């Protein structure tokens, strides 16, 4: 029993060490010269553009549903006019970034994990390495930087679409003009709502890319390991999103809401 615990602990520590080494290799290769611009742009397209529809639909529904759920409570308190403000604050600060990141963890981290995992299984990464090319620079740096850039952009798009979903839900029961609704939304927000949310999505994006690449790049050689890499990438990235969110909220509270 104790031996098992020690082995598990040692394995966990070795995993942490491996991740640190992988981060070091990633970081070194950003500045190693010969940046793969064309692959980076292709990844931005794959990660950003191809996730836009999914993020849009999800955030639209969340904005729509949130208004429908909030309305009875706020009407009971006589605070119906607070609906746009409540939605805007909750969506910009928390819902939009987290939902977008979770969607991206499911779609992007799994696809990166599976892609690199299958490249590992079919010896494509080994082939790159033994040819003298740099697989970290071509496969890892481009993907991590692309997610780090695209997840915040998707989050901003998701915020806008979510607020639009809220506007449509509000119009089912109340008549409110588009300009009045958005004026109320934007008027209720300030710098301390936008900036921390944007900064944390950068970390979400990095975590999604890093976990996907790490799990795929270090998968074992066997078809089963491709599925394991994809699955593990989603679970770990999702977990990291909540951990980063919790830390970000604490830091934001200290810096802005004291």
């Amino acid at each position: 029993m104790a031996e098992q615990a020690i082995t598990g602990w040692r394995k966990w520590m070795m995993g942490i060490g491996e991740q640190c080494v992988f981060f070091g290799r990633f970081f070194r290769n950003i500045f190693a010269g010969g940046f793969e611009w064309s692959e980076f742009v292709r990844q931005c397209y794959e990660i950003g553009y191809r996730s836009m529809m999914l993020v849009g639909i999800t955030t639209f529904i969340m904005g729509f549903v949130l208004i429908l759920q909030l309305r009875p409570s706020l009407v009971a308190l006589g605070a119906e006019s607070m609906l746009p403000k409540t939605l805007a604050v909750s969506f910009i600060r928390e819902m939009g970034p987290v939902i977008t990141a979770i969607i991206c963890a499911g779609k992007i981290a799994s696809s990166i994990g599976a892609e690199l995992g299958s490249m590992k299984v079919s010896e494509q990464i080994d082939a790159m390495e033994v040819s003298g090319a740099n697989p970290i620079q071509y496969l890892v740096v481009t993907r991590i930087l692309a997610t780090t850039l695209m997840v915040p952009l998707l989050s901003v798009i998701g915020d806008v679409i979510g607020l639009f979903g809220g506007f449509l839900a509000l119009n089912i029961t109340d008549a409110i003009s588009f300009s009045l609704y958005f004026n109320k939304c934007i008027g209720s927000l300030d710098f301390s709502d936008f900036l921390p949310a944007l900064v944390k999505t950068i970390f979400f994006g990095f975590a999604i890319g890093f976990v996907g690449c790490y799990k795929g790049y270090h998968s074992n050689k066997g078809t089963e390991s491709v599925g394991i890499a994809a699955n593990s990438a989603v679970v770990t990235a999702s977990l990291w999103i909540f951990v980063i969110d919790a830390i970000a909220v604490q830091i934001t509270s200290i810096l802005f809401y004291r």
Partner: protein
Amino acid sequence: MTVEKEINGINKKPQKPKDEVVIHASGLKKAFGEKEVLKNITFDLKRGENMVVLGKSGEGKSVTIQCVVGMLKPDEGDLKVFGEDVADMSDEELKQLRIKIGFLFQSGALYDSMTVRENLEFPLTRVLRLKDQAEIDKKVEEVLDNVGLLEAIDKMPSDLSGGMRKRVGLARTLIVNPEIMLYDEPTTGLDPITSREISELILHMQKKYKTSSIIITHDLECARITADRIVIMNDGEYIAEGTWKELQKSDNELVRSFFNETT
């Protein structure tokens, strides 16, 4: 098939002495956990020579060539490539060494998100850092023509048969003009006719590109066609060495058992 084609445009490598040892291994040992895969491997590969390592599957034949390119580190022993100890090399030195060594994987290991053309351009732009697109196109077309697959230049790897994938893999390896070629089971999974074509292509390419090669295989026909010298591997050790004819006449029962199928 271009095996019978005229050899033209032979690479311009400087002539080096034929008896020069390009790979020297002595007392190589490698274990994975409890399992000792390499027990005591000693060999020399001379310039321009084709050495075939013949043995049963799962005997650790591929581990030897993985050590040569620095993918694995031997636990013990001496391994020198072009006179330099592989274990002592820095990342940059290893990268420079790998440019001189071509490695053909069992599966071909083509990058499946790229077309054949892009697969071949990859080492030219990323390893040799060529910029001139006309020069890149010329090299790609030339090497594809050499392996008889010029018409497949814009196809995706998923559209190619097993034999075609191996040929494209070979072309991608040869395009950087390596001095040493390492083949990991080049005919595994192919039908006998295609296996023979690939074996002849290996021999043809060796003559054209003047490479020294280690060919890992359990295919006797491949060994017969390509080998200047054959070593037999059994239980982590080389148990016999010689030409095809010499080994056929071996007194060793295990060695003879390898050749019984074809004699």
